[in-house]
């Protein structure tokens, strides 16, 4: 039994058969809904997330929230009650979802060119349909795609990724739910991969500070990989949209 619970086997394979530096399969689609200004659906392994963006629009609710020099970014994270193995009581409003909402806002504000839209508000709503580890990174990645679909100017892609450490030595990329349960530290990083800036970093459990650099490097590498996957998706989406208007065929 204990053998089965290893994060990384002797031959270098993980629980789900991945190698240490392998991401889970990412599939995504932009523009899944018509009502929001931008929307995206993203699957990272089994984790499934929907994101919708509304705005920039006039600030709703109390006018005092509006800022004269930047847009207000408003995020709401919510999990479908059936997204986890055991049914959840409430889709949102608990401590964990509030925390993720705040972290999401932090990461997205860093990437959006908020100074272009003073006195306005941008709403980002993410809905988790299936939770299988790495919820926060999946939300950030889906939200980036939705923002791009909405045509909101970004400094660059904002991507997030998790990394762990197996056998006190080998860094693991993109932690799944199974690996989260087995234990082992989890480092979550949200970064602007092109400039290499880190916008959010969160860590649970401990490992020696000497390992931090290599785990962090691994996570950043993951962010870069995700960025290229997202970029590919955006390009093919633009091509799809473009070809319907006829301009793509000219190139």
């Amino acid at each position, binding site marked *: 039994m204990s053998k089965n619970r290893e994060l990384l086997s002797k031959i270098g394979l993980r629980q789900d058969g991945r190698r240490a530096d392998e991401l889970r399969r990412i*599939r*995504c*689609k932009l523009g*899944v*809904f*018509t*009502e*929001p200004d931008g*929307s995206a*659906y993203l*699957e990272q392994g*089994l984790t*499934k997330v*929907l*994101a*919708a963006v*509304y705005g920039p629009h006039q600030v*709703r609710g109390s006018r005092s929230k509006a800022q004269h020099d930047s847009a207000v970014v*408003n995020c*709401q994270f*919510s999990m*479908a*009650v*059936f*997204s*986890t*193995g055991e*049914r959840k009581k409430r*889709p949102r*409003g608990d401590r964990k979802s509030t925390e993720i909402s705040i972290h999401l806002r932090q990461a997205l504000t860093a990437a959006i060119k908020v100074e272009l839209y003073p006195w306005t508000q941008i*709403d980002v*709503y993410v*809905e988790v*349909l*299936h939770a299988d580890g790495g919820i926060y990174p999946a939300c950030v990645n889906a939200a980036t795609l939705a923002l791009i679909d909405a045509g909101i100017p970004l400094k660059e892609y904002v991507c997030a990724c998790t990394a762990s450490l197996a056998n006190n030595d080998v860094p693991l990329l993109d932690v799944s739910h199974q690996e989260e349960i087995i234990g082992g530290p989890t480092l979550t990083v949200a970064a602007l991969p092109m400039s290499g800036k880190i916008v959010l970093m969160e860590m649970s459990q401990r490992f020696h500070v000497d390992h931090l650099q290599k785990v962090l490097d691994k996570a950043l590498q993951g962010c870069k990989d995700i960025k290229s996957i997202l970029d590919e998706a955006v390009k093919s989406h633009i091509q799809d949209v473009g070809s319907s208007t006829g301009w793509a065929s000219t190139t």
Partner: protein
Amino acid sequence: MALCEAEKTFVLHGVEENFRVDGREREDYRPIELETNIVSHAFGSARLRLANTDVLVAVKIEVDVPYPERPKEGKLEFFVDCSANATPDFEGRGGEDLAIEISNSLSAAYKSPEVFDLTKLCILKGHKCWKIFVDILLLECGGNLYDAVSIAVKAALWDTRIPLVKSVTVDGNNVDMEVSDELHDCQKLDVTAAPIMVTVCKIGEQCIVDPNVAEELCSVGAVVIAVSKDKFSTVLQIGSGSLHPQTLLECLQMGEKVAQRLSEALTETLSEINPNKNQDVGFLK
């Protein structure tokens, strides 16, 4: 969405001419897409897209103790969540009123034993029963929510598989049960009588079904009619208008007729679904 008087008149005239804004006749539905078995954490699920209305329904099953006043029955509970993805108005607790209205109408429609037999969910009288949670997630609102939700719920319940109970042992007050290990050992629910809701909307002098958002704004009143087999399981008036008794009766007749057609179409579609073929496309389509 806001409409000016001229736009409202345009919609109204279209309804009068039996040629609506999107080219439909008064008793026509918009295209419906239905997928089942798309949430792997659930015992049964369905996603329905009715033009721009998008609904995801997942069914979860837990073991519970029956109500003392009805020891021979299982439990069925509906929970609606209005996702903020649909409209920013649903942020926080904004969608709660609508959610409660829809879930209450569903519970009312499924209440009668003729519609849905809860006694089949009983495992041991007075001690153990299945509790079915039907969780409905509204992802996009493009009008006609009740109809979309009711069809999706029926499809999700059709898709639901209840684990088979191998044995139940009673030891004093402790009740132990053993569930079959075989993955495919399960029973399906009987949903032949599960109600289909039809919203009949009154615009001007005429009644229409499946209103889109613009038509909903023009209507003076609407009646949600839940039809199970050939009988009415729930009728609910919505909106702030009032109706003449004769209009109400006309609405009921129309609702029943349309619901029969819809129900037939649904049964046919569901029978076409092949469980072995992996048709899972979900949102990536």
